[in-house]
């Protein structure tokens, strides 16, 4: 048995890596969460190849390793519906560094962690199965053959590798093992986001919206349940039913990318009241964009839409299933519904400019070619050097712009040379040096 202290250290390390790998996981383990202290019933030794490499923070294609566990929720992982009904689930959880499921505090979540990788990444997913039946994972759209065997019950492992060549929004879910359909409905599903190699300019924020359903009778007794009797009573967005759903926030005047994933077993049409959305992709494939208020996702489908946020800060627009799954076990209103809310645009900070050459108080003979060098920096845009404009208080603008400008025509006298940086929000920052031109 490991000591708790060691566990915590390993946990922190694991979280560092997982945080990089799993952007926006709806249920992210936190160091404050008590680790599972149950004894390891199936001790596992993680092979070296499964240990995550040190994270490389770069948009370039890389080798990415993700460890997932499939497990049943315990008391802290059960879902609680708005009517306070407690729903036990099966879910995926972050397997941390080693994929040793009994060794991390991550608890299974519904939906499972959102897996975010970059286009071109060579992705390795290690699955460790803590459930009492075989579990596999289907990564839809990734070109993998169906895994009909999966990881063996009660501690088995298996590995999936694929290259995330197509950017887009994808579903991963329990695959084609004999009990796969039931496993998906129990909660073994999540979103896989493949970020494009070049960031498109068409949106500034994005939100993953995983749609699913709960039939509490199934979840109470998965072994005894016949899926022919499946009749969902709760309708979830990212594992929550209204009014517990998270409000989707995006700044005024910007464009929001909504990434819908239907992990449910029935169709859902997601519509907006007062706004519309541009459907730009389905199932990870871009398509000729069309505008609609509501669009249907059949079971297993994904959809990307662009939503233009209006100007009025604080305005709220219902986002809901227009198939009207708007109740919590019959209690209205609830279910598959949330709001999109307009937030204020993040305040733009002005850039700063600096001049590295020539040195302040330098002196040159008239006619000498003087080269000015500087940089422009900005909190939001990092480098705005290209925007630098140079002026002399005696002669006016110096021709050229950017990090380096040269002139041999400065007039005799003492010049204040100002470099001004401008960011995309039209805010400016400047600095100056004094240069003397002698006859």
């Amino acid at each position, binding site marked *: 048995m490991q000591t708790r202290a060691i566990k915590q250290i390993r946990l922190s390390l694991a979280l560092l890596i997982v945080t990089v790998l799993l952007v926006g996981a709806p249920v992210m383990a936190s160091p404050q969460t008590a680790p599972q202290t149950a004894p390891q019933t199936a001790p596992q030794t993680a092979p070296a190849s499964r240990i995550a490499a040190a994270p490389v923070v770069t948009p370039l294609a890389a080798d990415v390793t993700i460890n997932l566990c499939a497990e049943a929720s315990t008391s802290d992982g059960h879902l609680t519906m708005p009517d306070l009904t407690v729903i036990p689930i099966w879910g995926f959880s972050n397997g941390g560094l080693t994929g040793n499921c009994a060794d991390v505090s991550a608890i299974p979540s519904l939906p499972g962690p959102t897996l975010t990788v970059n286009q071109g990444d060579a992705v390795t997913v290690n699955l460790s199965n803590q459930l009492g039946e075989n579990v596999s994972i289907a990564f839809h759209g990734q070109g993998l053959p169906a895994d009909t065997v999966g990881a063996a019950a009660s501690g088995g492992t298996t590995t999936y590798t694929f290259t995330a060549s197509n950017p887009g929004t994808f579903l991963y879910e329990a695959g084609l093992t004999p009990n796969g359909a039931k496993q998906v409905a129990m909660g073994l599903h999540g979103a896989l986001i493949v970020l494009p190699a070049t960031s498109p300019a068409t949106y500034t924020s994005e939100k993953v919206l995983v749609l699913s359903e709960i039939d509490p009778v199934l979840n109470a007794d998965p072994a005894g349940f016949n899926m022919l009797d499946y009749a969902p009573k709760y309708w979830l967005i990212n594992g929550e039913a209204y009014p517990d759903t998270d409000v989707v926030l995006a700044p005024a005047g910007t464009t929001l990318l909504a990434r819908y994933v239907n992990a449910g077993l029935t169709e859902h049409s997601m519509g907006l*009241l007062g706004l519309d959305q541009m459907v730009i992709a389905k199932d990870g494939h871009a398509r*000729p964009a069309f505008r609609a208020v509501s669009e249907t996702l059949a079971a297993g489908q994904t959809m990307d839409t662009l939503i233009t946020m209006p100007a009025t800060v604080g305005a709220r627009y219902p986002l809901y299933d227009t*198939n009207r799954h708007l*109740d919590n076990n019959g209690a209205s209103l609830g279910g598959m519904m949330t709001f999109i809310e307009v937030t204020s645009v993040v305040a733009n900070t002005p850039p700063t400019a600096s001049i590295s050459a020539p040195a302040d108080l330098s002196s040159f003979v008239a006619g000498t070619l003087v080269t000015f060098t500087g940089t422009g920096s900005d909190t939001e845009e990092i480098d705005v050097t290209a925007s630098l404009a140079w002026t002399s208080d005696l002669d006016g603008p110096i021709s050229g712009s950017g990090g380096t400008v040269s002139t041999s025509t400065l007039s005799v006298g003492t010049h204040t040379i100002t470099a001004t940086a401008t960011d995309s929000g039209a805010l400016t920052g400047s600095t100056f040096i004094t240069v003397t031109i002698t006859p």
Partner: protein
Amino acid sequence: MRSLVSKSLRATLLTLTLVLVVAAASPITSLSAQAPGEISIVCENETAPGIYNNAVSLVTQDGYIGIPDGNTVYMWGYALDVDIDLVAPGVQYGFQHPGPTLCFTEGQAVTITLTNLGFSQLPSLTDAVSIIFPGQTGVTHDDGTPGLFTGEADSGGGTVTYSFTASLPGTFIYGSGTDPQKQVQMGLFGAIIVRPTLGPNFLYNWTSTQFNPANDYMMLLSEIDPDLHWAVEQGLPYDITLFHPRYWLINGRSFPDTIAPNDAEWLPTQPYGALLHIEPFDAASSAFNYSAVRFLNVGMRNHPMHPHGDHIQVVGRDGRPLQGPLGEDLSYAEFGPVIGAGQTKDTLYNWEEIQLGPSGSLGLPTDIFEALNQFLLRPRDQNIMWGEWFSGSPYLGQTTDRPTGVTAQGECGEYYQIWHSHALHEAANYESGFGGMITLERIDPPGGCPP
């Protein structure tokens, strides 16, 4: 009951080309007397041809609709208020299902006032009501009580007024935003049509969407679980988790009622028919040979509507033309267009004679395939089990007895074809077919049916 006076006047206003004004209360004696307004879209707020009242006042009403299997179902509905009744001040418009079809011209400033008169069968009910307008932008509301989706009109005569500019042409749903799982199921919904600046014979400001304004049809799809309606009527708990629809409606009617004309007297609360009555496609005047077929789905299920043996061209969704950012034509043909719940699809349709095969041209076959024949002909003419549904109207077919064994009994060589939900369990009334979400198209010979 709606006022006969207003109906007749409305018919007059609607159809200047009407050869024979047929009050709905009078039996229609000949199909050739069938004016476009009798079967295509009725804009209830139309004050003169193409002129739409922009200030509409609606009230809540309740009543019953008939289903062809003999059942009646208790419904709620929006009805036009007396105060803006252009024809008969002081006369309350009665319950109708679906709610009144409202038309506007692009750019019109619209106000819609809703007064909650409650429901006569349920005097102790205190439910607030409201209207949401999916697809409209900039909707504001005055008065009313704040609700989750929009402002609401409280029970006991509460009112709320919605205002918006009809800035986008196309076809839109309106319906209750208050407890919609109950109130929309109970019937609080209707259609809004916004005609584009380009003209009333276009679906959008897009020349490719031109159609013959005499052939402007809507198919508003819905489902009914009669057990839930019974529960509401009896004041019993309403449990949407038990939702099991048994009736599948187009424009508030179930087949074969769908093919009866607008304002059919035997359907006093279900004013809107869904029969298409067209002529074959004529390439020489193609622009005027398209029909507009506007699909709306206010149900909880998606419905795959199928123009049997044919396809349609989808040109718009939810009041948005299927055009790319640079005006690219993104319209597409489908033979099984799925109308998603809460969605609308604007389509263009034509029928080409060649679809009948090599024998096309004149001499259109007049056989109606047997299942339909059973609805359309007099029960005594053949031994059929559904004959009891026959309305007694000679609306489809001629009035004389048909010789035994003759299955062709058209009026002038017209041809009938079925349109139906291809989720075939929906082509039924309480699991008994044919019925449900079915209608027909009638194709007259080129030039029309001679009088």
